[in-house]
């Protein structure tokens, strides 16, 4: 090898290593591996992996309606993901996003079903009720940790169940039960956060929208609502609070080093409470937006968890606890959940294959620390080769 080609090879190797050291690379590789494992399983079970993946992508992208539904599905898990990521950045483990989500949904119904004000007042009130409900549950967890040192994982798991039964209690209560159903009464139409809910189903609206087929598809055939836009704003907001505000500076200091924060005069207990309250408010917001934005605009009796909170964990993990990253991870997740249904319809493969894919991706993301190690290994190999040539 001449000196020049060797230099070029070294530069190329350097670039590969730089790319391998970037966190996003590890995530992308993990996603690819997730698809790979799913392909192997599909093939082993006798389904055509190519056709299955084609069905998955068609199930997400082939119609504006599907894209719309994917975004609707993604919004709440983006929010619960941001909640988990936010808590994690402040040194807390918010496994309670599930319960906080339910609290938000219940509170939105409690207020929205009984109150019927003009829309500009009603929507903020109902949404704020949900946010407050989630924040309260988060704050209880934070207060117990700050005051008595009880670990947040224990209290939030218990609160998850508490919220599940509170939800069922509200659904069954005389004031909120809808006769001959397993649901509560819906929130009043004035609290709907669906985009243009009245206009799009009016004659004038339908007439106008028919002119633009994709928009008709996108708007009329789904419950498209403001939740995704709100989620994007919350992601940016969470990033700003964490990294650009003095509050976030304090919260992160307490999260990273309680002792140093204490010595620097920061109120450690209060910050734990604030961090958990914020982390709780975000799933609460998600719960409220799902009630106000998606049919049937009510809550129903739960036999088990709907996994909004737990899926948020996977989203935050795939996003590497970056609030902005949660938008993309949430979309990926939402796409797989929604598009996965078409896999079953198209090739007959069970939807479990989607769960396996998600599981594999999360597994490999968790293993992502391996990728920089592989980069180092390549570097050492290159050195060895270089030494042999020298």
């Amino acid at each position: 090898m001449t000196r020049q080609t060797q230099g070029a090879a070294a530069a190329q190797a350097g670039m590969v290593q730089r790319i391998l050291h970037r966190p996003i690379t590890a995530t992308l590789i993990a996603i690819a591996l997730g698809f790979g494992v799913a392909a192997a399983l599909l093939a082993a079970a006798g389904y055509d992996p190519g056709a299955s993946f084609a069905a998955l992508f068609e199930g997400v992208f082939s119609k504006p309606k599907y894209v719309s539904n994917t975004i609707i599905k993604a919004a709440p898990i983006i929010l619960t993901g941001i909640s988990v990521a936010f808590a994690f950045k402040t040194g807390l483990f918010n496994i309670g996003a599930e319960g906080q989500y339910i609290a938000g949904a219940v509170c939105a119904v409690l207020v929205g079903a009984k109150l019927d004000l003009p829309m500009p007042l009603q929507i903020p009130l109902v949404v704020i009720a949900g946010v407050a409900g989630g924040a309260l549950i988060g704050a209880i967890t934070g207060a117990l940790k700050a005051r008595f040192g009880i670990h947040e994982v224990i209290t939030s798991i218990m609160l998850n169940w508490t919220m599940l039964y509170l939800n069922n209690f509200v659904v069954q209560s005389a004031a909120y039960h809808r006769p001959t159903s397993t649901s509560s009464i819906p929130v009043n139409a004035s609290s709907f956060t669906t985009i243009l809910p009245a206009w799009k189903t009016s004659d004038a609206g339908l007439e106008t929208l028919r002119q633009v087929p994709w928009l008709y598809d996108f708007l009329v055939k789904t419950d498209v609502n403001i939740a995704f836009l709100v989620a994007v704003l919350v992601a940016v907001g969470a990033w700003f609070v964490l990294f650009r505000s003095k509050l976030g500076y304090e919260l992160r200091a307490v999260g990273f080093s309680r002792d140093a924060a204490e010595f620097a005069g920061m109120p450690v207990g209060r910050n734990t409470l604030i961090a958990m309250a914020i982390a709780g408010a975000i799933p609460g917001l998600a719960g409220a937006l799902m009630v106000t934005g998606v049919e049937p605009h009510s809550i129903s009796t739960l036999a088990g968890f709907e996994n909004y909170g737990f899926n948020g964990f996977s989203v935050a993990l795939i996003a590497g606890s970056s609030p902005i990253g949660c938008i993309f991870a949430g979309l990926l997740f939402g796409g797989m959940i929604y598009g996965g249904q078409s896999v079953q319809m198209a090739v007959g493969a069970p939807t479990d294959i989607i769960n396996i894919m998600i599981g594999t991706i999360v597994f490999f993301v968790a293993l992502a620390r391996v990728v920089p190690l592989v980069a180092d290994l390549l570097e050492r190999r290159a050195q060895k080769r270089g030494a042999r040539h020298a």
Partner: protein
Amino acid sequence: MEPDASLAVQMRGIVKEFGTFRALDHVDLAVKRGSIHAVLGENGAGKSTLMNVLYGLYRAEAGEILLNGERVEITCPTDAIAHGIGMVHQHFMLVDNFTVTENIVLGDEVCGAAGVLDMKRAREAVARIIETYGLEVDPDAKIEEISVGQQQRVEILKALYRGADILILDEPTAVLTPQEIERLVRIMRELASAGKTVIITHKLKEIKASSDACTIIRRGVQVGTVDVSRASEEELAELMVGHHVNLVVEKAPAAPGETVLSIRDLVVEDERGVEAVRGLSLSVRAGEIVGLAGIDGNGQCELVEAITCLSRAKAGTIAVHGEEIQNTSVRNVHAHKVATIHEDRQRRRLVLLFTVAENAILERYRDPAFGRRGILDRAAMSSFAEGLIEAYDIRPADNADKPARALSGGNQQKVIIAREVSGEPDVLIAVQPTRGLDVGAIEYVHRALVAERDRGTAILLISTRARRGHERIRHHRRHLQRQDHRHVQAGRGRREPPWPPHGGR
């Protein structure tokens, strides 16, 4: 340097690069068989890197290694072990709830038929090595039950059990008490006289007592190898740092002003509710350094926590400029311009995952200078941090955006000193400010303290582990303390714990 069979280790022209940073630049090392050879250098000079190359943890870009005059290829620790090289790292690698014997044989177990562990034979083998070198550890004790000094001996045993003839000890004295250091020196002498070769990395202290020869590395470049018996500590320090080092701090006589910090009849209880500080009274005037000495665990910790309002004073007063501050809040203490340099810098004074710029404002982030309406002014933070980095020579110079964890201990301490001193405090509490630092950094800290004194700060210097004539107290008495320091015994009247703590010899 020609191949020489009388030399146990020869390293020639070793070059090691990390990215663009050259950690070792053509370093040579020659170690005689059966000798104790020290590798001396400041933090970050490259001594551990050189040892890691020898042990196969790093691969050098250039250079060769000869053992007993023969060229060897060491690419991983397994190679090193096969060539009879053992290494004891600064941070021990032991399983806490395993016994000494179990730890020693771990990875190299004695097995009977069908791969069944034969712990009886293993224990015998271990006991034999303990006997031979006088290492004195109970082979059946669990790691969590024995002292740090004994844990280090277990690490040495692990290397010897694997047949090491060349033993690398990386900063072996950093974690030990003075008694344990004496023990270690004796063990090393024992090993050397049995024909083993010992290489230790060092930060100057105890080198005269322990080593035969010494190779000095400064910023990755080998400066020279000297016969320890012919060089003075000052000469070694000078070679190491690259300029003349003052082991004695030069300073003008103190010109103390009025009393700034005054403590009266202070009583503080420790966590168990035992009175750790009993009726302590002292005062510190502006422009003087008052030393407070005592063995660790005699109330120094509780005193500092009380002054900084992290724990309650049960009785008595702490006043700054006549205003009582005890049992108020940490922020109130800061408002009275009391700054603290703490011995436990990584736990108490830095957020290791924060950048240097973020750490630089740890106590001042509320200041409008760093952003108004609750929003951080990143530009102001960076320029403030860069100012400190330049003024206090914190290295590397482009570290404002790097996490504090990436800095060496000395530079971490510089960040803290820079931050505390830049607030122009009236009172400075310095707890073991030089602990774990190398000579260059120690000199720096001493100078900074004296400069603060001359500016008119009242300084309370607290040291621990200072009984029995250990160098620390002599050190302060000699260098910082002359006519302007008064000694006060902390935790007066408290029964002192048995010493040495682990039964000793």
